[in-house]
């Protein structure tokens, strides 16, 4: 019954899509999109882009990089802001202001700062082109993803860290815990659910941002690039296929983070 109910909306969407594609030069047929999806490793014959699977991999790696960097920087900074008044007063206003700026607005700034540089150009210079995937991890793209994911992670972490009960910290201190142990045994686990919430929100933003970020010049791979190029070349079946893949990957990513959140927060009592 649950499955049947869950299928109602997708079925309605498919039906609407079918009718919209009839006689349309812009809305591709379901069949043409499926044809793209079932040949993920094929070089698109009518699109200047890498195969769908390569594009998905490039997007996933960029997001993984940007998101990981965001988590690794945002969690410590969030903990600092949450636990240290001076840090909070110094950083909170800037973070609050920066958070409301869409990460997409930072794209031109990222291009100016990083251009087409990548780990490949940093490591291999002129031979960067030999290291395709590494070269696709453009710093500018990763920076924009980082911008998108950083603030929700940091602010949620700060909120979680600030909400740690002093009684718990004092209990640990009375048992001999030093500052690092208070951090690892009390603050981090206590703030864990809030951190996971931040990661989920940040992860969602990171994945959504990649689509816009992949319009960077010099990018030839990625799902966002595929959508943009498909739009330019009027090969819309690739755009639709990319959207479906984006949705599937995004769902998987959120599912994984949700599982992590459940695991980290399983100690919280559930109200019935």
């Amino acid at each position, binding site marked *: 019954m649950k499955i049947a109910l869950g299928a109602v909306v997708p079925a309605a969407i498919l039906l609407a899509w079918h009718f919209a594609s009839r006689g*349309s*030069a*812009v809305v591709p047929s379901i069949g043409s999109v499926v044809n793209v999806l079932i040949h993920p490793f094929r070089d*698109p*014959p*009518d*699109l*200047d882009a890498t195969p769908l699977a390569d594009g998905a991999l490039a997007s996933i*790696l960029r997001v*993984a*990089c940007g*998101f*990981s*960097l965001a*988590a*690794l920087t945002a*969690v410590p900074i969030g903990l600092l802001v949450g636990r240290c008044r001076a840090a909070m007063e110094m950083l909170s206003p800037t973070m609050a202001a920066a958070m409301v700026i869409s990460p997409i607005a930072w794209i031109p700034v990222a*291009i*100016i700062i990083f*251009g*087409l540089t990548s*780990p490949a150009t940093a490591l291999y210079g*002129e*031979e960067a*082109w*030999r*290291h*395709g*995937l*590494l070269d*696709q*991890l453009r710093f500018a793209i990763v920076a924009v993803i980082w911008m998108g994911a950083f603030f929700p992670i940091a602010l949620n972490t700060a909120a979680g860290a600030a909400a740690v009960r002093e009684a718990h910290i004092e209990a640990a201190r009375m048992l001999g815990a030093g500052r690092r142990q208070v951090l690892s045994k009390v603050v981090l686990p206590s703030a*864990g659910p809030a*951190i996971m919430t931040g990661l989920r929100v940040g992860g969602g933003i990171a994945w959504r941002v990649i689509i816009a970020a992949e319009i960077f*010049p*010099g990018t*030839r791979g990625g799902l966002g690039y595929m959508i*943009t190029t498909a*739009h*330019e*070349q*009027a090969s819309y079946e690739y755009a639709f296929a990319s959207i479906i893949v984006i949705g599937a990957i995004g769902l998987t990513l959120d599912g994984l983070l949700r599982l*992590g959140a459940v695991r*980290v927060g399983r100690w919280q009592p559930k109200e019935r």
Partner: protein
Amino acid sequence: MKGTLLAVLVASMVVPGCDRSSPRPKDAGKPPVMLSVGHVGHDHHLALYVAALEGERFRKDYGIYLKAIKSREVYDLVENGRGLARLRFIKVGGGSRMPAAMSRGEIQIGLGGVLPVTKFADRGQPFKIICPLQTDGDMLVMQKDSPVTDWPSFVSAAKGGAKPLKIGYKAPLAVAKLVFERALRAEGIPHGHNAADRRTRVILVNFGSEKSPLPLMETRSIDGFVMNQPGVAVAVHKGLGKVVAELRDLPPKGKWVNHPCCCVCATQQTLKTHPGVVKAFLKLILLSTRLIKSDQQLAIDCAARWTKYDKAIEKASIPTIVYIAEPTDTWVAGMNTWADMVRDVKLFTGRYAGVPSDEIVRDVCSLELCRAAARELRRKGLLERK
């Protein structure tokens, strides 16, 4: 958790690092110079793509060719058996993206629109236009069932129609838009972006650079658009429009014939330090342009192979584009016209503010290498005499 994130970060670096999609050949014979060439990926830059795809033919027929190291991305520029430079092709996109990439040092040679390059030169960027690539190829397209069939009927519909016409364009400095606006002015048709102004008879709609006007055409949000090829051919191929006028024929009569569109440009530093390489590159462009003009079927095939557009689209697009690589008087006059127009709308705010058009063109163009390349090719009998 931290460990998991660290692992993901490391994996995301290591996994791509394991990618060995381009096996490293022995580096003996690797050219001494590495240059990056920016391009847009459509058939205005066909000269580059023909050279890249027909390397073997160029080697046999001309002795100057591109040797593919990584298809579509890296080529060695070889002349008389000697590798002069390794060229990395970077698809930077159209409009101001190419000069912007050049200003960041990411490319040293660029293929793109003459107007954005001139704009950047106005801002003090040390760029020079070193040879033309093509002219024309801009059209006015209307809805397939529109009563408008040509320019005179467009003028009638604009002036006397029940509603104003909405015409899309891709960028404020796009050649097609500038020509179209001048033509509207010449016909005395009030136009602009403000739909609330009752006097406006043609409402201009910016559908965004690189974006396609097709969704707007299908939803009838616009009545037509002005754009360069192959966007025009795509719309017609998809059954979403019909060509009613080539912009070269728009009034003032004769003003827009052979209007410059794309060019090859380079940084002054590149011209200073690698003139031999640049000249060899220009020879390639000259020869490629000649081949395009003499073998249109080859041109269509190469265009379809590189751009991945349907051959039917390229077949419709390429004959409307005039590929030239040698600067002619007409081309220079066309550049003067552009400079006039840009200056009139006060878009030159830097070095070129208040400067006469011919001085601007003389300053932004550096055509000596191109002419020298053409002379050398003529001496070898590889280019027709003028």
